C-alpha cells in the first residue's frame, strides 16, 4: 500500500493521466512540428533500459533488427574490432573466462552475435530440409540428434498441463502488457480494436478538428464524452452491428465520465491496482489519437476553445472496450460470459486453447496450420465438438516439442560454424559442454544483443570522427584578417554550406550557433496575421518584433495588405467553396478548372519555372514593399507571453548581442562584414513542411532572428553600450542578415539598402561568394538524391534544387537532418578543413575565454536537448518507422489540420515519415566539446538535465583538449577514457573530389583547400 492508494479516486485518475504524458506521443499539431525525443517520457531511465521498457510497453522495436547490423558488418560499416570493443563497452562480465576447452566467453558471445539468435520457422525449416543440403548437413544433424534427445527427459509433462500453464501466463498479462482485446485477438484472430477505432475515429477527429469540418457536433461544447453520447444515442450502427443492447446502455450511462470509468473499470479488471496499467495499455493501443487528445488537454490555449479532457476520452474508450469485448466473447464462447470468467473458461478447455494459441506460433507446421485455421474459422460460424479440438491438439502437441529441438539445433549449428568447430570436435563434445555453450550463447537477451550491435555501429563512426579531429589538430589555423565573418545555425545541413564557403573564400571565418541567435522573440511579419514565437520551444518570449513598411509607405502598405488579403481570400474561397457550397461550388469549379489544369501541366513539366513565374505574378499583383523592423522599445514594461512588449529596449538589445557574441567567441578581430545567416526550408505540397525548418526556432524560419540581430548590432546606441561592457565593435564593421533556404539553396538577403556605401564593394564579394557556396552545396546534396542529376555542375545542381523545392510531386524535397550523427562544441578551427558529410552540428565556442565554464554550460544546456531531440527522433523513426514514425507519405491524409492519417480510417500518425529517414544511420548523438575533462565533470555534476541526458547515455559525450590533440570519451560507468587510434585520413583538394560519384554516407576526409 503506498500513499497514493489513500487518495480519492478522482485524484488518482488525475495522477494516472499525468503519467500518460510520459508514454504517449507528445507531438503538437503538425503545423508546428518540433523535433523531440520520441521516448522523452523514459528519459529518466538509462538508454538501453528505457528502450527495453518502451518495447515492452508499446510493442515497438527500439533497435534496428540484428540482420540489418549483420549486413553492416558484411559491408564494412562495422568491423570485427568494433564488435569486440562493444562487448567491453557494454560491460559483459567475465569476458575472458573459459567456457569450454580453449573458447572464452568472448569467443562464444562474438560467435553468437555473428550467428544470430533467430531460427527459421517450421515451414521454412521443412523447406530447407527438402530443398537444400540441410538434411545432409552433418553439424545440424548432429545437434538435432542431441537436442531431440534432451527435452524428452526434461518435459515429461502432458500437453494439457503445458497448455494450461501457457494460458495462465497469457491471462496474467492482462492489465500489464495486454488488454482483454489483445487476449481475445490472440484467441479468436478478430481484433476488437479495428471496430473501436472506426467507431471512435470519426468522433475524435470531429471533436479535435481545427478547421476542416464546417459542421460541428451540436453537443461539442459539453466536452467529448457528452458529445459522443449525444451522437451515439442516435446511432443506428449498433443495431446493424448486432449490438442492440448497447444503445440502452448508452442511454442509461451516468452523466459524469468519472462515474462511467468507476462503473466500467471493475467490470474489466477487478483488481484495482491494475487499473493504471490497464488505462495506459488502452491509451497506447491508439497512440496517435490518445496522444493528440492529451496534448490538446494539456495545451488548451492552442485549440479552438473546444473543451478537451482526457477523462472523457478514457471513459468512452473503456466503455467501448468492455462492450465490444463482451460481444466478441459471447460469439467466441457461444453464450454470455463475463470477462472475468474467461480465464476459467479456457482453463477448462486446454485442447481448444492449445489449437487457438498454436495458430500464432512459428513452429506450427504448414499442414497443421491449415487445419487449425480451418477449425478456428469453423468455430466462428458453428459449434465445434470438443472431440475435434482434442483430436487436433493431440496432433499439434508433438510438433511443439519437436520445434524447440529444431530451434536449439539450428542455433547450436550456426554457433559452432562461427566458432569453427570441426566434426571431430563435435563428436567429442560432451552433453555438459553443449549445454554450457548453449547457456553462454543464450545469456544475452535480445535487447542486450541489439544494444551491443548499436555500440559497435556507433563506435565505428566515432573512431573515424576522432581520427579526423586528431589528424586535423595540427592543421588548425585561422585567417588573421578575415574578409567576412558568417554566423549560421548549428544545423548539420549548414556544415556543408560552411565548408564550401570556406573552400571558396579561405579568408572567411564561419561560426555556428543555436539558430535563433540568442534573440527569443515573437515575430509578426508584414504579411502575418498573428505573432509566432521564434525561439526554442521551451522558451516563452515576452517581446514582440514587427515588420512594417518603410516610413512614408503607409498607403502602399495598406494597399498591398488589401490586395494580398483579396488574393488569399479568393484562393481560399476556391478551395473551400468548391467542396462546401452547393451553388457557388459548381460555379467556382467551372471557373477554376482551366487555370488548375494549366497549373498542373506547368507544375508537372517545369516546376521550377512555374513556381518562379507564379511568385513573380503574385508579387506584381500584391505590389512590392520595402520593410523595416519595429525594433526599439522606448522603455521596459511588465510583459507576459500573452501581452508581449512591442520591441526591445536598448539595454535588452545590448544584453542579447553581447551574450551571443561572447557565446560564439566572436569578441575581437571583427571583419568588415558580419553575416547573420538564418535558415528555413521551403517545399511544396508537404504536410511535414515545418519538420525541415529550424528546430531552434520552434520549427519556423530563422531569418527574422538573424535580421533582428543584425539590426540591433548596427545601432550606434547598442554599439556604445557594448563598448562600455568591453566589447568594442569598430565603425568599420557592419552586420548584414540573410536567410538560407535549405531546400532550394537560395539566399534571401535583408535590408541591403541600409548598408552604408563604404561596405558595398565587400558586400558584392560576399554576396557572390555565398551564392557560389550554395551552388556548390547543392551539387553535394545531389549525390544522395536518386532523381537528381549525376555529377552535376553547381549551376545545374542549383537549378535542380529550385525545381525540386517547388515540385508538388516531390515526396523528398530535401533530406532534412537525415544522417545527423555528432555535434562539435568548440572553435571552428577544430573541424575546419574536414569533410564531415553534413552530419555534424557545429557550435562555435571559444574555450580560451571561458575560464569557469559558464559559457559552455549554457551551450550544453541549450544545444544538448535540441541536438538530442533531433538525433533521437530520427533514431526512433528509423528503427521502427511503423510505430515511432508515421510511415510512407504517399497515403497520408491531412486530418483536422492537426495531423495525418493513412488513408481515411487509421490511427493518427506521429513521428517522421519514412521518406525523411530512409537513408538515416540510427545512432545517438556524439557530442565533442573542446574543453578539459575537469570542467566538463564539474558542469555535469551541477546540472541535473545534463546528467539525465549524458549519464543515462541518451547522448555520448567526449572532450577534446583545447590545447592538444587528446580526446577523451566519457563513459558513465568507467569515467573519462583516453582515445587512442590511428589518425591517418585521406586527403583531397576539394570536397567535390571526395564526394564525386558517391551516393552513400562518406567517411571524413581532409580537405586541403579548406584551410589557407
Amino acid at each position, binding site marked *: 500500500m503506498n500513499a497514493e492508494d489513500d487518495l480519492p479516486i478522482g485524484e488518482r485518475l488525475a495522477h494516472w493521466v499525468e503519467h500518460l504524458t510520459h508514454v504517449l506521443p507528445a507531438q503538437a499539431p503538425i503545423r508546428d512540428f518540433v523535433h523531440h525525443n520520441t521516448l522523452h517520457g523514459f528519459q529518466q531511465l538509462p538508454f538501453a533500459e528505457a528502450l527495453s521498457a518502451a518495447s515492452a510497453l508499446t510493442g515497438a522495436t527500439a533497435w534496428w533488427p540484428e540482420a540489418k547490423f549483420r549486413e553492416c558488418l558484411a559491408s564494412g560499416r562495422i568491423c570485427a574490432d568494433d564488435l569486440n570493443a562493444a562487448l567491453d563497452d557494454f560491460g559483459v562480465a567475465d569476458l575472458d573466462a573459459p567456457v569450454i576447452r580453449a573458447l572464452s566467453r568472448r569467443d562464444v558471445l562474438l560467435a553468437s552475435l555473428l550467428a544470430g539468435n533467430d531460427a527459421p520457422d517450421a515451414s521454412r525449416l521443412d523447406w530447407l530440409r527438402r530443398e537444400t543440403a540441410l538434411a545432409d548437413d552433418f553439424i545440424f544433424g548432429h545437434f538435432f540428434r542431441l537436442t531431440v534427445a534432451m527435452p524428452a527427459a526434461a518435459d515429461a509433462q502432458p500437453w494439457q498441463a503445458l497448455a494450461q500453464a501457457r494460458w495462465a501466463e497469457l491471462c496474467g498479462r492482462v492489465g500489464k502488457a495486454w488488454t482483454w482485446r489483445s487476449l481475445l485477438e490472440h484467441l479468436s484472430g478478430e481484433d476488437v480494436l479495428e471496430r473501436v477505432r472506426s467507431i471512435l475515429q470519426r468522433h475524435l477527429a470531429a471533436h479535435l478538428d481545427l478547421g476542416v469540418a464546417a459542421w460541428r457536433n451540436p453537443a461539442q461544447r459539453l466536452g467529448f464524452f457528452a458529445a459522443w453520447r449525444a451522437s451515439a444515442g442516435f446511432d443506428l450502427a449498433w443495431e446493424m452491428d448486432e449490438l442492440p443492447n448497447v444503445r440502452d446502455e448508452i442511454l442509461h450511462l451516468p452523466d459524469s465520465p468519472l462515474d462511467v470509468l468507476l462503473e466500467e473499470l471493475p467490470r474489466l479488471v477487478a483488481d484495482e491496482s491494475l487499473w493504471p496499467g490497464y488505462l495506459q495499455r488502452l491509451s497506447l493501443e491508439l497512440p496517435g489519437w490518445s496522444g493528440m487528445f492529451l496534448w490538446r488537454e494539456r495545451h488548451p490555449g492552442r485549440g479552438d476553445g473546444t473543451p478537451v479532457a482526457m477523462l472523457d476520452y478514457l471513459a468512452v474508450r473503456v466503455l467501448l472496450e468492455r462492450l465490444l469485448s463482451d460481444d466478441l466473447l459471447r460469439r467466441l464462447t457461444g453464450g454470455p460470459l463475463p470477462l472475468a470468467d474467461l480465464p476459467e473458461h479456457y482453463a477448462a478447455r486446454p485442447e481448444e486453447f492449445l489449437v487457438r494459441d498454436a495458430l500464432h506460433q512459428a513452429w506450427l507446421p504448414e499442414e497443421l496450420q491449415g487445419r487449425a485455421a480451418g477449425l478456428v474459422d469453423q468455430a466462428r460460424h458453428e459449434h465445434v465438438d470438443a472431440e475435434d479440438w482434442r483430436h487436433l491438439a493431440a496432433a499439434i502437441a508433438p510438433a511443439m516439442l519437436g520445434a524447440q529441438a529444431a530451434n536449439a539445433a539450428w542455433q547450436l549449428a550456426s554457433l559452432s560454424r562461427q566458432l569453427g568447430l570441426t566434426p571431430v570436435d563435435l563428436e567429442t563434445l560432451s552433453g555438459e559442454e553443449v549445454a554450457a555453450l548453449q547457456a553462454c550463447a543464450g545469456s544475452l537477451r535480445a535487447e542486450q544483443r541489439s544494444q551491443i550491435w548499436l555500440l559497435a555501429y556507433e563506435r565505428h563512426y566515432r573512431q573515424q570522427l576522432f581520427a579526423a579531429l586528431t589528424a586535423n589538430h595540427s592543421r588548425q589555423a585561422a585567417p588573421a584578417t578575415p574578409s567576412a565573418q558568417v554566423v549560421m545555425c548549428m544545423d548539420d545541413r549548414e556544415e556543408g554550406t560552411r565548408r564550401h564557403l570556406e573552400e571558396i573564400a579561405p579568408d572567411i571565418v564561419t561560426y555556428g550557433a543555436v539558430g535563433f541567435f540568442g534573440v527569443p522573440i515573437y515575430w509578426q511579419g508584414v504579411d502575418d496575421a498573428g505573432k509566432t514565437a521564434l525561439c526554442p520551444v521551451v522558451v516563452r518570449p515576452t517581446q514582440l518584433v514587427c515588420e512594417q513598411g518603410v516610413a512614408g509607405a503607409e498607403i502602399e502598405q495598406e494597399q498591398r495588405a488589401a490586395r494580398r488579403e483579396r488574393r488569399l481570400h479568393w484562393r481560399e474561397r476556391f478551395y473551400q467553396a468548391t467542396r462546401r457550397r452547393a451553388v457557388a461550388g459548381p460555379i467556382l469549379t467551372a471557373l477554376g478548372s*482551366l487555370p488548375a489544369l494549366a497549373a498542373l501541366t506547368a507544375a508537372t513539366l517545369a516546376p521550377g519555372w512555374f513556381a518562379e513565374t507564379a511568385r513573380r505574378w503574385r508579387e506584381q499583383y500584391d505590389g512590392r514593399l520595402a520593410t523595416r523592423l519595429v525594433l526599439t522599445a522606448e522603455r521596459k514594461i511588465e510583459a507576459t507571453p500573452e501581452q508581449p512588449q512591442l520591441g526591445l529596449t536598448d539595454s535588452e538589445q545590448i544584453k542579447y548581442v553581447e551574450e551571443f557574441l561572447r557565446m560564439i567567441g566572436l569578441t575581437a578581430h571583427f571583419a568588415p562584414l558580419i553575416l547573420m545567416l538564418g535558415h528555413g526550408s521551403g517545399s511544396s505540397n508537404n504536410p511535414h513542411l515545418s519538420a525541415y525548418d529550424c528546430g531552434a526556432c520552434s520549427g519556423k524560419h530563422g531569418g527574422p532572428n538573424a535580421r533582428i540581430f543584425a539590426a540591433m548590432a548596427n545601432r550606434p546606441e547598442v554599439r556604445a553600450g557594448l563598448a562600455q561592457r568591453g566589447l568594442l565593435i569598430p565603425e568599420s564593421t557592419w552586420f548584414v542578415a540573410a536567410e538560407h533556404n535549405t531546400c532550394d539553396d537560395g539566399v534571401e538577403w535583408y535590408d541591403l539598402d541600409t548598408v552604408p556605401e563604404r561596405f558595398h564593394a565587400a558586400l558584392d564579394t560576399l554576396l557572390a561568394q555565398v551564392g557560389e557556396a550554395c551552388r556548390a552545396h547543392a551539387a553535394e546534396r545531389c549525390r544522395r538524391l536518386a532523381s537528381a542529376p549525376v555529377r552535376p555542375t553547381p549551376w545545374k545542381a542549383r537549378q535542380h534544387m529550385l525545381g525540386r523545392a517547388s515540385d508538388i510531386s516531390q515526396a523528398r524535397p530535401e533530406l532534412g537532418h537525415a544522417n545527423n550523427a555528432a555535434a562539435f562544441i568548440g572553435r571552428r578551427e577544430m573541424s575546419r578543413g574536414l569533410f564531415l558529410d553534413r552530419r555534424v552540428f557545429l557550435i562555435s565556442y571559444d574555450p580560451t575565454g571561458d575560464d569557469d565554464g559558464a559559457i559552455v554550460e549554457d551551450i550544453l544546456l541549450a544545444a544538448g536537448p535540441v541536438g538530442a531531440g533531433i538525433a533521437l527522433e530520427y533514431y526512433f523513426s528509423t528503427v521502427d518507422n511503423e510505430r515511432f514514425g508515421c510511415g510512407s507519405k504517399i497515403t497520408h491524409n491531412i*486530418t483536422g489540420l492537426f495531423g495525418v492519417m493513412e488513408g481515411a*480510417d487509421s490511427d493518427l500518425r506521429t513521428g517522421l515519415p519514412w521518406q525523411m529517414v530512409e537513408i538515416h544511420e540510427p545512432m545517438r548523438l556524439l557530442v565533442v566539446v573542446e574543453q578539459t575533462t575537469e570542467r566538463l565533470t564539474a558542469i555535469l555534476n551541477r546540472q541535473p538535465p545534463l546528467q539525465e541526458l549524458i549519464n543515462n547515455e541518451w547522448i555520448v559525450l567526449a572532450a577534446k583538449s583545447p590545447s592538444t590533440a587528446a580526446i577523451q570519451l566519457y563513459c558513465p560507468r568507467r569515467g573519462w577514457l583516453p582515445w587512442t587510434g590511428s589518425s591517418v585520413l585521406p586527403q583531397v583538394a576539394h570536397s567535390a573530389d571526395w564526394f564525386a560519384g558517391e551516393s552513400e554516407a562518406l567517411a571524413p576526409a581532409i580537405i586541403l583547400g579548406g584551410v589557407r
Partner: protein
Amino acid sequence: MIPLLANLPEWIWLVPVLPLVAVVINAARVLLGTATGDAAEPLTARLSSLAAFGGLALMLAIDALALIDAPPGHLRLAHWFGNGNWEATFSFMLDPLSLTLGTLTALIGWLVIRFSANYLHREAGFHRFFIGLSFFLAGIQIVLLAGNGLLAFVGWEMCGVSSFLLIGYAWHRPVATGNALFAFITNRGGDAGFLLALGLAATWLGGFEWTLLSKASQISVVNDRLLVVGFVIAALAKSAQLPFSAWITKALEGPTPSSAIFYGAVMVHAGVYLMLRLEPLLVQVPDVMFGLVVAGALTAIYAWLCGLVQTDVKSALIFATLFQVSLMFVAIGLGWTTLALVHLCLHAGWRVWQFLIAPSWLVVTRERPPPPPAWLRNNQLLYTAALQRFWLDKLADTLFVQPTASFSRDAHAFEEHFIDHAIGQPGQGKAVHADRPLVVADGLPGRLLAWASDVLQRIEYRLLLRGKGGTAEKLMHRAGAYLRTLENLLEQPRYLMMAVMATFVVIL
C-alpha cells in the same frame, strides 16, 4: 502524307493499346525479376508516361482532324465474334463526346503518371502501382472510345480491377484490403446491370453498337425501359450514386495520385459518360430520366450533408466530388446533356488538381469554412447521420458484402467437403482394402483407378499367376496347340503358294 493523316482515326485503337503494352512490358520485367532497385524505376515510369503521352498525341491529332474536317464518327475496325443473330465487333466511336472526354482523360492520365514518378519513388509497390495505373488508363480509354457496349464493358471491368488493386495498394493494412474488397463487390452490382442490358441488346437489337442502340425506338417501350435500366444501374454504381455511394468513401486508401485520377477526376465520371452516350435511348423513357433526377438529387443531399462534417481532407474532397457528379445526373435527367458534359470536363480538371495538392491543405486554407444554417447546425440526429454517412457503408456491408462472403464461404465449404473429396488430393490417400495397405487412393478418380487396377490385377492373377490347372491355362494350351498346327501347315509349300495367290487376288 495526306492519306496517312486521313487514315489517322483508324489508329485509334493505339490509345488504349499503348498503355496495355506498357503494362505487359512492366509486368514482364517484374515477373522476370529485372525491375528491382532505384535503377529500374525510371524505365517503368518512362514507359508508362510515354504510352500515355502517345495516346494524348494521337487524340490531339485526331481532334485537330475532326476540327478541320468532321468528326470521324463510328468506326468499325474488325469483326470480333458473333453468330447469325448478333455480332460483336472491334469498333470505336469518335464523335465530339468521346473525343472530348478521351483527350481530357489522356491529358490527366499523362500528368498523373508523371506526378507519380517522383511521388512513389522507392515505394515497395512502385512497379505495381504503375502497372495498375496504366491498366486503368487503357480501361477507361476503352470505355470512352469504344463503339459498342461490349467493348466498353471490357474497359469497364478493367477499371474495376485496377481500382481494386490500387485501393489495396497498401495490402499489409487490413483496412485497405477490406475496403478494396468492399468497393469491388459493390461495383459488381453495377456490372450485373451492364451485362443484363448487353444481353437484352443482343437479343432484341442484334448487336451492341452504340449507333444501333440509339435506334432502339423500333422495340417496345417496355423493352426499351428494361434495357435502359440495366445501363442506369451500371452508371449509378460506377459513379457512386445512391444507393451505391458507400464504396467511393471507402476507396481512399491508395496513394494520393491514384485517388486523384480514379475518384476525383476520371473514373467517377464514367457513369455520367455512359448516360451521355445513351442519351438517344434515355429520352424515350421519361420515367427513367425522372429516376435519374431523383437518384442524383438524393445523392446530392447525402453528399452535401456528409461533406459538411468531414474532418480529413480526402474524405471532404470525395464528398464534394460526389456532390457535383450527382448534379450531373440531375442535369442529364432533366435533359440538359450539354451542360452535364461541360460540367464533367471542368469538374475533372479542377478536382484532379485539388486532390493532388491535398497535402497542401495546411497552407492553402486559413480558417474554418462557415457553419451551416442554424436549423441544421443544432440537429443532433442529422449530425449523427451525416457523421455516420447515413450508415450506408454498414448497410452495403450487410446487404452486399456479407452475403457474398457467406456465399463464397459456402462455396469453399462445398469444395472442401465434397469436391476435394471427390477429386482427391495427393498424399491424402487411404488404403482401399484392409488387407492390401500399399494400395492407397483418395477421391473418385483415385478410387476408380484403384478399382480398375484391382480388376486388372485380378485378371492377371487368374490368368497367369494362378498357375497349373486353371481354366485359362488349359485354354491357352489348346490355343497354343492350334497355332502351332497352323504354323506347321503354313510352312508347307502348297499352303505357302495358296497364301501368295490369295494375296494377289486381294491386291487385284
